[in-house]
């Protein structure tokens, strides 16, 4: 029995796939590849794989992680190559390492970095937007209504405190306007580092909602990308493929 952790990217073609569907993609790719994955016992055997933080539907990423348990020892290079040969084009494994840690990837994630391209119909200056963000970050408390399913299945809005979950955020210009977005009044990019994982998790859409409240405008279109996902070792940020996280 051996374990391998991989980093993979998800491109434009597969950004509207749900987390559940993504797991099926891997399950089939593993089956196609013939890699010696370990299966769970029981009537309906499942391949033993664990994924990091689910990627929200509509987002691209170059830093997704997954752990695989193999029934036979397999080299990381070979694993990566055979898996890539079986995955659809939009998903690429970019790194793999032997994993000796007891803690699975899902339980290890602590933070994430997002690149959020915002497009508004209203014409806004970059200075105003930047000032708005700075003002927001100065607040000690930021409350925003979070939608969740109530007991009776109806949707309810709950006020949630999000300030402690915003680690960093900065505004940048959008240097190359993507095709199809020329008609908007303004475009800007937010680079945000937010708490993520099983202990505390701030979804970027909730962050954007709070920011829109602050600015008093709405984002008319958003393109989202996850640029980093990290865990912690001894209180410091660490890449999940870092030696410290794998032993």
């Amino acid at each position, binding site marked *: 029995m051996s374990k391998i952790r991989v980093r993979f990217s998800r491109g434009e*073609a*597969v*950004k*509207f*796939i*749900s987390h559940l*569907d993504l797991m099926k*993609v891997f*399950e*089939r*790719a*593993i*089956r*196609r590849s013939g890699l010696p994955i370990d*299966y769970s016992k029981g*009537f*309906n*055997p499942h391949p033993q794989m664990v994924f990091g933080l689910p990627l929200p*539907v*509509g987002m691209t990423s170059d830093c997704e992680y997954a752990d695989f348990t193999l029934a036979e020892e397999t080299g990381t290079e070979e694993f990566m190559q055979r898996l890539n040969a*079986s*995955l*659809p*084009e*939009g998903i690429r494994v970019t790194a793999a390492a032997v994993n000796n840690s007891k803690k699975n990837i899902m339980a290890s994630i602590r933070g994430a970095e997002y690149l959020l391209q915002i*497009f508004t119909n209203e014409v806004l200056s970059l200075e105003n937007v930047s000032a708005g963000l700075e003002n927001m970050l100065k607040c000690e408390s930021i409350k925003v209504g979070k939608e969740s399913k109530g007991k009776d299945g109806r949707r309810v809005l709950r006020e949630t405190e999000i300030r402690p979950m915003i680690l960093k955020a900065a505004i940048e210009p959008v240097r190359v306007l993507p*095709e*199809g*977005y020329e008609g908007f009044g303004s475009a800007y990019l937010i680079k945000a580092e937010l708490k993520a994982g099983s202990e505390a998790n701030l979804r970027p859409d909730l962050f954007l909602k709070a920011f829109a409240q602050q600015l008093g405008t709405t984002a*008319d*279109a*958003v*393109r989202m990308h996850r640029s980093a996902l990290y865990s912690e070792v001894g209180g410091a940020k660490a890449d999940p493929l870092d030696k410290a996280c794998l032993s």
Partner: protein
Amino acid sequence: MPVIIRDDILQSVEKPARYTGGELNSIIKDPSKVSIRFAFCFPDVYEVGMSHLGMRILYNLLNEREDTYCERVFAPWTDMEARMRENGIPLFSLETRQAVGSFDFVGFTLQYEMSYTNILNMLDLAGIPLERADRGEGQPFVCAGGPCAYNPEPLADFIDFFMLGEGEEIINEVMDVYGEWKKEGASREEFLNRIVKIEGIYVPGFYEPKYKGDGTLEAVSPLKASYPAKIRKRIIKDLDNIYFPEKAIVPYINIVHDRIMLELFRGCTRGCRFCQAGYIYRPVRERTPGKLAELAGKLQESTGYGEISLTSLSTSDYSGLPELTGELIKEMEPKKVNLALPSLRIDSFSLDLMEKVQKVRKSGLTFAPEAGTQRLRDIINKGVTEEDLLNSVGLAFGGGWSGVKLYFMIGLPFETMEDVEGIAKLGRLVADEYFKVPKEKRGKGLEVSISTSSFVPKPFTPFQWEAQDSIETLRQKQKFLRDKISGRHLKYSWHDPELSMLEAVFARGDRRVGRVLARAWELGCSFDSWGEHFKFDVWMQAFNDCGIDPAFYANRKRDPDEVFPWDHIDIGVTKKHLLREYQKAEKGEVTPNCMTSCVGCGATVFGQGICSEYSGGGRKQQNIASDGREESE
């Protein structure tokens, strides 16, 4: 140029992955390197269309050609359609996201009548004139095929040409002609003139219907003597050697049939008198178990699917079933791949097989006795007895199954209230079988669900002359049955008779009902087979606006010698044979299936499949009747 669809649009619709493509095994080509672009359109949502085997076969087959790029197109769901119209986005293909209006061919597969408004809607979204008469040089040819094409007349004003029968050969012949024609730069009319010579091609613009004073048809006749008076469907002779894709697209999102589909055979030997598929796909032709096992292996490797289903009209009739399932179980078990067996018939139900392949779920088994009494089952030639059914469910209950679904039809020809009540009685008897099994052997929580659909008379069946029950009568029968079905283990569900009535109109409609279709679409009808979008009142308004009475098509019994809108289509089986079957039905006489004896239905004209085993002397002929081919032609 690809159509651009911004993220905010995709984020605002349900299941955006319906529109983004890029699935494993989807085919990517450089459109500038091919001379023929074919948009294969399924007039329903992605999940439904992708579950359709015929589309998958033809998609891969066309893409085997170097000169052709076939791409997929599905009907955008209403939310996406609204966003597309708001943003001026035309109907686009999944592979290259290019406007369908710029393709050479726009081909629709006709699987059910209630998808017809979606065809018009898709043409409109593509910016293609709905009526073929309005299309000009440089615009795509709109073609159609599939089971509903056997009565092409309701769509005759919208489709440039139909391809009748199995598509593998004919579609290549059409592409060959097109390639030449395009090089020459000849006229649109000239292309149609060339393909009308291909067997199985029906060009509706070359034919004209004439009607009698009473509104029935006099004839649909060719405008020139050189056009064929009868168009014969195409069939594939040797299934082992015809193209079958070894790769299959694997969708990202859940589709209706999310597994490998292995087609064992085409046609059905049974001859149930209500069933159109049983007639239009004649004669039966099988693939060999060896070939199937080989295909299964390749498909499994190329897709990574964890389930294989054996699909055919009546899978348990497959002669090589034990050999094939034995082989597949041996091959697939170590790979953790399951075998699913749909449409098992109860008279050849094999509990052993079910035990072997369905280790997990023991909840639902499906049976389709279709009618509640032996008298009516004989009338419809459903060769199933009460004893068969009770034995089968008894065995299943003994084996631990506890849920049974029973499918019936109401409104069948010659049905009485006793027959309707028989459905409830049969349900009760099935439940009794459960209680006969000792408590410790049977599964927990018995549930017998009875479901009735309403009979729709279809072209090319012995019941094509029959009237459909009126909506009121169907309602009364449903209510009557609801009152008869009692007990907490029995559940009853039924279909909307309004939808069945419309189906009956378009199944047997002539060219005139096309106007109703166009009007209903104008008034906002689409996705009619999806309950939440079905607008019966609007449909009735459309009939009214066009001055067409739906009852003339749905609820009128035809004379034996009435000319039908599909009489110029030849499926092999003769009208004379169908009439003979209809008369036998009235007398409650059953007809044996093709495995037992040949009753001379006319399908021998193809000289293929099971029929040739009789004529070739491989099978002994018993009481063979004349197929009446000479007289009817």
